[in-house]
């Protein structure tokens, strides 16, 4: 509940500034359980997950492999129904998929027969928003992720990091209020990854989105997030939610400061020998 340091970032999430009532959470999970399989073979991927994410907030989820992070993201996206419990986005309960969510997966998930620009326009095509009116926006996003000169190339002609950036531009083109990212930089080398983290922070600060960001990397989570959700496996549940009170914009240099290290250590203590990297 600690207040975030004010003045560093202003992110008005389309919420009328009524100070009296607490703003409605952008994403809310209440008592969510999700099991795969039936009977003895059943596996509890999510156990009693409660989480509220404020509008415009950047929340990172860390946890070892198999603790239910992707499951959580899929439930929020409406791709799979929760076994029990409720998922809310704004003031509507999630039943199935919506149109105001952007997703970035671990792999770029591009369409090889579409050019870079056409890939970015995919949400526009799916939602029939009209290419003409959104072309400028798609180009602007491509410029934002540093791919201005690559719009008529095909995905196979790009490096892995460039492909991932196309995926990020695509997730933003229909201007979704919510951005869900499932280990988007997991496949990248450490240097590209840090660079992408800085870019993502810059992008998010200028765009006022609510972000749910899943990662294996503790330092990535601390670097990017307002709050870090720590999950533990079998059954997948939330162990702790940690407020990251580091000022923004955060630089890579900040990663070698004492407060940053304290956060990383505090999170890592949850996992012991579970093998979470940073």
């Amino acid at each position, binding site marked *: 509940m600690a207040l975030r340091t004010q003045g560093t970032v202003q992110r008005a999430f389309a919420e009328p500034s009524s100070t009296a009532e607490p703003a409605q959470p952008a994403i809310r999970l209440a008592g969510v359980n999700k099991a795969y399989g039936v009977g003895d073979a059943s596996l509890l991927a999510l156990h009693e997950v409660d989480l509220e994410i404020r509008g415009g907030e950047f929340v990172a989820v860390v946890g070892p492999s198999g603790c239910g992070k992707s499951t959580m993201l899929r439930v929020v996206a409406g791709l799979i129904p929760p076994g029990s419990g409720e998922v809310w986005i704004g003031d509507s309960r999630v039943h199935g*998929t919506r149109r105001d969510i952007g*997703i970035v997966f671990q792999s770029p*998930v591009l369409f*090889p027969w579409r050019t870079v620009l056409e890939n970015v326009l995919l949400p526009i095509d*799916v939602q029939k928003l009209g290419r003409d009116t959104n072309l400028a926006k798609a180009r602007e996003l491509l410029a934002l992720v540093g791919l201005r000169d690559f719009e008529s190339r095909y995905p196979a*002609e*790009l490096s892995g990091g460039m492909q991932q950036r196309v995926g990020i531009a695509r997730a933003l083109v*229909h201007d979704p209020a919510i951005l869900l990212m499932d280990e988007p930089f997991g496949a990248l080398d450490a240097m590209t990854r840090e660079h992408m983290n800085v870019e993502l922070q810059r992008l998010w600060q200028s765009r006022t989105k609510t972000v749910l960001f899943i990662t294996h990397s503790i330092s990535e989570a601390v670097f990017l997030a307002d709050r870090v959700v720590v999950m533990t496996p079998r059954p997948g549940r939330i162990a702790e939610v940690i407020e990251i009170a580091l000022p923004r914009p955060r630089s890579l240099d900040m990663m070698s400061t004492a407060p940053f290290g304290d956060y990383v250590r505090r999170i890592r203590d949850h996992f012991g020998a579970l093998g979470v990297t940073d």
Partner: protein
Amino acid sequence: MQSSVDTTQNRLLSIALLVAALATWELAVRLLGIPSFVLPPPSAVAAGLWRGFSSGLYLQHIAVTMFEVLLGFALGCSLGFVLGVAVALNRHVAYFLYPYIVMFLSMPKVALAPLIVLWFGLGMTSKIVTAALVSFFPLMVNTIAGLNAADGDRVDLIRSLGGSERQIFTMLRLPTALPMVIAGLEIAITLSLIGTVVAEFLGAEQGLGMLMQSMNFSMDIAGSFSVLIVLAIVGLVLNQVLLAVRHRVLFWERLGRGASSAPKATASPAAGVPAEAKRLTS
């Protein structure tokens, strides 16, 4: 990969090899006194080719065979594609057809040719039906496998945007299936030519298969060989046309570091159909 081997020197060597082989063949036949009705010398085969083409006889039969091959191919492939789409999209259709598909898959369809000639007569119809029958299965099987090969994350991506099943089909499944469908066409065109010629062997009024058969009967083995060469060229041309189609349609396969590899080979039934069976039970 190709350019390093495709040198003028290698081409010349390849031609020299052919010339040497033909010369050896010619000499062997003459020196050993092998009768022409057992193994004709290349010179006699060449003479047969010349006679056949200059008289217009071969062109007429080529036209008939090509017509049968292409019409049968078009019919069989269209039907195979449509049914493949139906099976891939509709679990009820899949459920009812599955046992029959499996039954027919392992059977050599060309073995039905005698029956087809019996039922449809000596005219072109029986050839077209045979060609259609043998074209049908590779197309259907490859279409099913191709449509089911869509990457789960890509499906989820369209779905997460509120996309419909129809959009998933047109924007994702269909283009994903294209390489497999074209591989199916490549198999089907070869089978279609084989099926047509076999049906012509069994009884026909016109066509290259009939021509070859009648030359065999009249002991014109050199003529027979020349028709064989014509058939080889016809097959080569048909294959090249489809190769060009593949190259043009699947442009993205040639890009980059071969990131998206083409499923070149035919889909075994194991790749396509059981995946469908799995979906039926889920």
